[in-house]
């Protein structure tokens, strides 16, 4: 067998240290790109880099092979510097076929590297990619890029020519060849991938050995060909001391819920109906039943929320996870949660809408649904994690607020956070905020009255004077029998009441209770000076891109500060003063302008929208451009080139 090492050896490949890089693996849905990307991520974690990832895959499980709409991608941004986003522009694109090149080439920076599987550029491949009349390998399509042509399929078959594996099995391992090459190109260790393969295919020795062989061959091939030119090194990041792991947002939500259960002593009941991209929370949390977590795959979205509320009535912490269309179906039940004042956490992994919309693409377009989307006056707190790891803390906070204030809470994450991952500093359990839950178990003078028949009767709507929360007395507790329901409640007694003054009073009490959540949330962090000409104010998953953009602009001496909302509704009490310190407020959102409507309703200030509604997260440069534009409009000076 002729091995690549017999060909020209390029021992003079230059080695260069770089602060950061962005790599994008792209291929067919069946090419194993998510797996390849995950393994590169793991190797980068082992190289002690800070990192952020973003998978981008089609809604179809196996879209027709070779087509542009069947392209699945995994983007990874890693560095020795702080990494806030999965990367604006791609430094290395690995394109497993023609369609992948066509879809993702526009994302590669000029001068960037493109590694191509030349075996997947046959006339048929080009036709499938709607490139019938083009010849991208030879025309000017790739002009200005550094191209590495690799016959991935051929080389993989050669590497495995002495095995008994079928052609299909052989071809399936070509992603390991690409992984081996790219790991070498960025001086990543091979060992994490090796041990993963050993574990994954432990009971299938032939497949295991094939994958290990191809991985090594890939790395070896990269070392020996001249086309690579430069090998990169990315030094360990100077991260805060602690123990780290990579965590995906969906995983982090599940862990946050388990942590809430463990710290509060409550059982968590997670009711859910499968929906993209929220199902991964159900998958993750159902693994942790030994923490007393009950999971229930309901018959539909309504049953999921109904069961969660029922569980809360029974003294557990009811949680349900879904996406926008599912929240729409749960709306009536969430209103019942508001009326019965039971704890409930609704996780919304937002996706592009309206209707079925873009199931696998992120968007922040459910904010107004979360804040206002129920019949009647039905306010509830809305939280929004800012990064995959932050999903842990905000899920925990959602549980804490739901039980402290006896209210449904909406947690607005999105597919970008849910599927994306980052290097996450694992919290010390003892440093988590205390989570005390008090359920009422005995009658007292304050919570009892004498009813119309002269019998003692529990008062389910007597309120805590600080939080305005009503008592949580669960069925099975003697002497505290009471009825809840969706009909308007009489103050204190909870009896059905159609009294006009009582209705107004109860509407205002429920609103005031939700408003009081602002008492127990941390101050809103501000990056940069607290006064100035421009503040960038975002919420939720856009934090990484905003931080990155503000950092770049400030480096270029543009006067700009940033504040970010994770406690979105009610608006934090300190926000008025923060906004007051600036002439203009730029509000970037992945929607057509939703937070900005809430802000304009609450504050008198010059709010400038920045909206992106493409099913993709912000790139930092887009926000930089908007910052510069807003700054120039204010000062009349020309833009600082970025």
């Amino acid at each position, binding site marked *: 067998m002729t091995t690549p090492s017999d060909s020209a050896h390029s021992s003079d490949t230059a080695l260069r240290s770089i602060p950061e890089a962005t790599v994008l693996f792209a291929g067919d849905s069946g090419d194993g790109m998510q797996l390849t990307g995950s393994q590169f991520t793991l190797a980068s974690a082992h190289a002690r880099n800070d990192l952020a990832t973003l998978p981008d895959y089609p809604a179809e499980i196996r879209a027709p092979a070779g087509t542009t709409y069947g392209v699945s991608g995994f983007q990874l941004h890693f560095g020795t510097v702080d990494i806030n986003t999965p990367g604006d522009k791609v430094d290395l694109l690995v394109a497993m076929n023609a369609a992948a090149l066509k879809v993702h080439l526009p994302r590669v920076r000029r001068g960037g590297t493109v590694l191509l599987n030349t075996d997947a550029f046959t006339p048929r491949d080009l036709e499938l990619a709607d490139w019938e009349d083009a010849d991208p390998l030879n025309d000017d399509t790739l002009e200005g890029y550094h191209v590495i042509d690799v016959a991935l399929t051929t080389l993989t078959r050669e590497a495995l020519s002495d095995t008994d594996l079928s052609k299909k099995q052989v071809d399936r391992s070509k992603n390991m060849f690409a992984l081996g090459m790219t790991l070498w190109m960025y001086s990543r260790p091979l060992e994490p991938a090796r041990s993963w393969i050993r574990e994954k295919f432990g009971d299938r020795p032939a497949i295991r050995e094939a994958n290990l062989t191809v991985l090594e061959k890939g790395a070896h091939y990269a070392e020996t060909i001249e086309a690579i030119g430069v090998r990169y090194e990315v030094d360990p990041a100077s991260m*805060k001391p602690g123990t780290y792991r990579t965590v995906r947002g969906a995983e982090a939500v599940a862990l946050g819920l388990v942590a809430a259960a463990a710290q509060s002593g409550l059982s968590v009941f997670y009711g859910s109906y499968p929906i993209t991209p929220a199902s991964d929370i159900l998958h993750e949390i159902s693994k942790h*039943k030994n923490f007393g977590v009950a999971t229930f795959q309901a018959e539909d979205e309504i049953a999921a929320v109904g069961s969660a509320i*029922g569980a809360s009535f029974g003294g557990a912490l009811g949680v349900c996870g879904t996406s926008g269309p599912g929240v729409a179906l749960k709306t009536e039940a969430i209103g019942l949660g508001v009326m019965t004042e039971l704890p409930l956490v609704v996780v919304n992994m937002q996706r592009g809408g309206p209707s079925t919309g873009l199931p696998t693409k992120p968007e922040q377009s459910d904010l107004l649904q979360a804040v206002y989307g129920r019949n009647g006056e039905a306010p509830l707190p809305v939280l929004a994690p800012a990064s995959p790891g932050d999903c842990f803390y905000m899920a925990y906070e959602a549980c804490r607020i739901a039980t402290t204030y006896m209210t449904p809470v909406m947690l607005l994450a999105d597919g970008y956070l849910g599927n994306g991952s980052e290097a996450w500093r694992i919290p010390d359990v003892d440093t988590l905020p205390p989570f005390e839950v008090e359920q009422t178990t005995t009658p007292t003078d304050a919570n009892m009255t004498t009813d119309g028949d002269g019998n003692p009767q529990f008062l389910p709507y007597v309120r805590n004077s600080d939080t305005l929360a009503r008592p949580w007395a669960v*069925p*099975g507790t003697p002497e505290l029998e009471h009825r809840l329901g969706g009909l308007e409640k009489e103050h204190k007694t909870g009896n059905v009441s159609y009294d006009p003054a009582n209705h107004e009073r109860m509407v205002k009490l429920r609103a005031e209770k939700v408003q009081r959540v602002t008492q127990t949330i941390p101050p809103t962090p501000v990056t940069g000076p607290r006064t100035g000409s421009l503040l960038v104010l975002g919420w939720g998953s856009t934090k990484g891109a905003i931080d990155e953009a503000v950092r770049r602009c400030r480096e270029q001496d543009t006067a700009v500060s940033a504040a970010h909302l994770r406690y979105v509704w009610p608006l934090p009490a300190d926000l008025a003063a923060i906004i007051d310190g600036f002439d203009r407020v730029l509000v970037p959102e992945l929607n057509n302008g939703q937070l900005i409507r809430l802000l304009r309703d609450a504050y008198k200030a010059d709010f400038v929208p920045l909206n992106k509604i493409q099913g993709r997260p912000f790139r930092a440069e887009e926000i930089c451009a908007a910052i510069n534009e807003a700054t120039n409009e204010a000062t009349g000076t020309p833009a600082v080139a970025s």
Partner: protein
Amino acid sequence: MADSTSSNGTASDNTKKPSGPPGAKKPAGPPGAKKPAGPPRGTSPKKPTLPPGYGGDSGGDALTRKDFSSDQDVRWCPGCGDYAILATMQRLLPELDVAKEDVVFISGIGCAGRFPYYMDTYGMHTIHGRAPTFATGLKCANPELDVWIVTGDGDALSIGGNHLIHLCRRNLDTQVLLFNNEIYGLTKGQYSPTSEVGKVTKSTPHGSLDRPFNPVAVALGADASFVARTMDRDPKHMKSMMKAAHNHAGTAFLEIYQNCNIFNDGAFFEFTDRNTKADRALFVEDGAPLTFADGDQGLRLDGLTLEAVDLTNGRWSVSDCLVYDSGNREMAHLLGRMFDQPDLPRPFGVLYQTDRPTYEQQLHEQINAVREKRGAGDLQTLLHQGDTWTIEG
């Protein structure tokens, strides 16, 4: 006499920090153990230590009907069949060996939905059609509770049809009381999914077109483990059916023919009226031949078809009649389908009953099995799962 606090711990302060799995406050046995599996179709007592009526709040005095009546004015229309159902339930509960604080009524929307407000127990008036979903979460959170679902024909079979069938197939240990009046009452008189074809109502001035559901057949089709039918005008039978439903471990589906005297008066009079009841209603009993009309008529099997036969003319006798076996699924389907045969009487009683593990019991068994295998979870260990790396300070 049993100590009324024995099942509830002895918390002396006002609050407690919740601990342990749902139901842990009653260490008597595993979830679901309160309703022993055998003997099948019996009325075996669940907690023999508590004589009927001695559970819960009253500190040892036997509970009475009054203990289960709330102070709220009952607002159903005068003459409504719901009154009889409410009174029967309030009479039944003191006879059951269940602590008052463990009884919960969960209802949906409609006239029947108001039921929990009139019971001095725990209760929740939920949203239209969804009562089974709330009951599912509640029962899973605390399997020790005695959960009753109160619903109507529109609530259970129209807007809530999906939840009803899934409740039945899961076999959650709960009782479903379906008040069937074959009309929409609270919205003032539109036809319902159980109204007969051609029903003229406000919404169907030229007659309704859709074929009605037969609730019993729906429940049997959804694999309910207990299916029974009764009527508001026979409180004694109704009470025995409620009791049988209660004693069944699993989803007990009880259809109650309930007269709406405002919008559909007399819908069931042929089965309930003194003059016609004997001929038109057949009360099944386990192990007894199927007879009606005071024993003058019976049902026999002609191939796979039920046939009504005259037992007075010497041609047929009681020994020719089908002997009812409520554990026989095929027989249950035959009786369920008598609904479609106007020449046959309508069967009442426990039409089907079988034993099957309950959902909440299996849920907690699974949790306990995982706990036994892996031990109670340690959060710090969980957070450190997978590949980690440490940055030194």
